[in-house]
């Protein structure tokens, strides 16, 4: 049914866009262990994206690659948090930490979806997201408790991505159509806040105050980073439409 397909796009696009951002780091990370760790996270996310996008595409007879490579920016449904540029390592960690905490809360609940496919993808993915959250948490603690410079950079990183947090927890009309199937985003906020509060307490960080972005990713309104990201990601596939790889 199209509503489920649309919902699967939300989650698939979140994962894909974040994986694409993370792919940049591989061969550029601060140490080899991080090339591997970030590669792992990107791989997991591509796996999740493939599951969600295959499911989303099945409603209209399209493949995962048609979904990934042949939709334009306005057809993407990622939330803007996932679209935030890598920035420095602290920005990447701040964004990944928020992304992981959100996805973890979401998948935990989505396991109980009446839609068996969504439930199965969530059940498979949550173990991996568990690792993503742990990875980001460890780095939040290290950067916050490392040097004055790393702490300062982490604080800036969180301040820069925090405006995109609220969008993650906003309910959309689609939620009304998918009771029992999708998770109502607003209900995830407490779990998210609790986890963030615990880590921030240990890291002696404060929740940033300031801007809040309007968001709109779920209806195709994206951050200005998404256009160039898709241009690069899709360039080869679009050059050979219909080709197999």
């Amino acid at each position: 049914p199209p509503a489920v397909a649309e919902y699967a796009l939300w989650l698939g696009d979140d994962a894909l866009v974040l994986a694409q951002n993370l792919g940049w780091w591989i061969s550029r990370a601060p140490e080899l262990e991080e090339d591997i760790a970030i590669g792992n996270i990107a791989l997991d996310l591509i796996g999740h994206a493939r599951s969600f996008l295959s499911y989303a595409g099945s409603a209209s007879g399209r493949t995962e690659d048609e979904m990934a490579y042949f939709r334009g920016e306005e057809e993407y449904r990622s939330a803007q948090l996932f679209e935030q540029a890598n920035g420095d390592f602290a920005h990447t960690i701040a964004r990944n930490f928020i992304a992981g905490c959100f996805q973890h809360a979401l998948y935990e609940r989505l396991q109980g979806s009446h839609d068996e496919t969504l439930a199965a993808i969530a059940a498979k993915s949550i173990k991996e997201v568990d690792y993503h959250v742990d990875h980001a948490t460890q780095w939040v603690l290290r950067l916050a408790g490392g040097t004055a410079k790393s702490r300062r950079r982490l604080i800036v990183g969180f301040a820069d991505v925090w405006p995109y947090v609220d969008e993650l927890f906003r309910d959309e009309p689609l939620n009304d159509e998918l009771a029992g199937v999708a998770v109502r985003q607003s209900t995830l906020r407490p779990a998210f806040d609790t986890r963030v509060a615990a880590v921030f307490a240990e890291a002696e960080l404060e929740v940033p105050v300031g801007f809040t972005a309007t968001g709109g990713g779920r209806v195709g309104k994206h951050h200005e980073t998404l256009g160039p990201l898709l241009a690069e990601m899709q360039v080869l596939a679009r050059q050979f439409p219909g080709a197999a790889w």
Partner: protein
Amino acid sequence: SAEEQQFNDLIAQDSRIEPRDWMPEAYRKTLIRQIAQHAHSEIIGMQPESNWILRAPSLKRKAILIAKVQDEAGHGLYLYSAAQTLGVGRDEMTEQLIAGTARYSSIFNYATPTWADMGSIGWLVDGAAICNQVPLCRASYGPYGRAMVRICKEESFHQRQGFEILLELMNGTPEQRQMAQESVNRWYWPALMMFGPPDDDSPNSARSMAWKIKRFSNDELRRRFVGMLVPQAEVLGLTLPDPDLTWNEEKQAYDMGQPDWDEFHEVLAGRGQMNAQRMQRRRDAHDEGAWVREAAAAYAARQSATTERVVA
């Protein structure tokens, strides 16, 4: 000396030398140089492939490519560990790489302008690496041999993936087939150069063979490799770009042309396509990551100090 005698006996018996065993200083140095060079090659070798991670034309290929580049980082780590057992630090090796005083395989100084290069690197470059490395699994130095066992297993997987990329292209549109052939044309000779200069021009080979670090000559390995490629190229429908490549019934082996050794020496001397870029990227990643490593170290130090206080 008795130690030397024991060392020689172990070598003669095809036994393994372990980190605590006595070994001649030249053996240690040769190994350190070779293992570090191999580790550096894995690290630098991530770059030509990471060039296509963001543009991989399908999600499956993107995932496979990321996994591959990640494996290379893993190989770098095993090899640094093996080198560390010989008394050289990872930081020291990294500094040598950044400073440009350590070598890495010249093959990674070639550019990857097309997606088909992901196929050619797997099929030809990893293929050549395997031919070089399989004998190293029996290398006399234990940690090195064992690292190579693990690495070779993964490399042969990578080679198959490269083959599959080319196969998909050759089964594809005319443009895709052309992309594949053009890429193989570029990578064939550089891959053959990976076995090193011709035997009569390879000064260090003899001693390495005596010490059983190395077990076959450069030319012998090169010939084996080409023998392996020919039937695979037929399956793929690709032409190997050597007009002199013909089966010699008498020798029961292929006759083949010579790579452009001038190009080989040019690249080795720093005048290849991407030498500067490869070093720049590694230096930048290292320098720009310094504050992160410092933070991690400071945090770890503080944590262990806290633990000590709690324990005390």
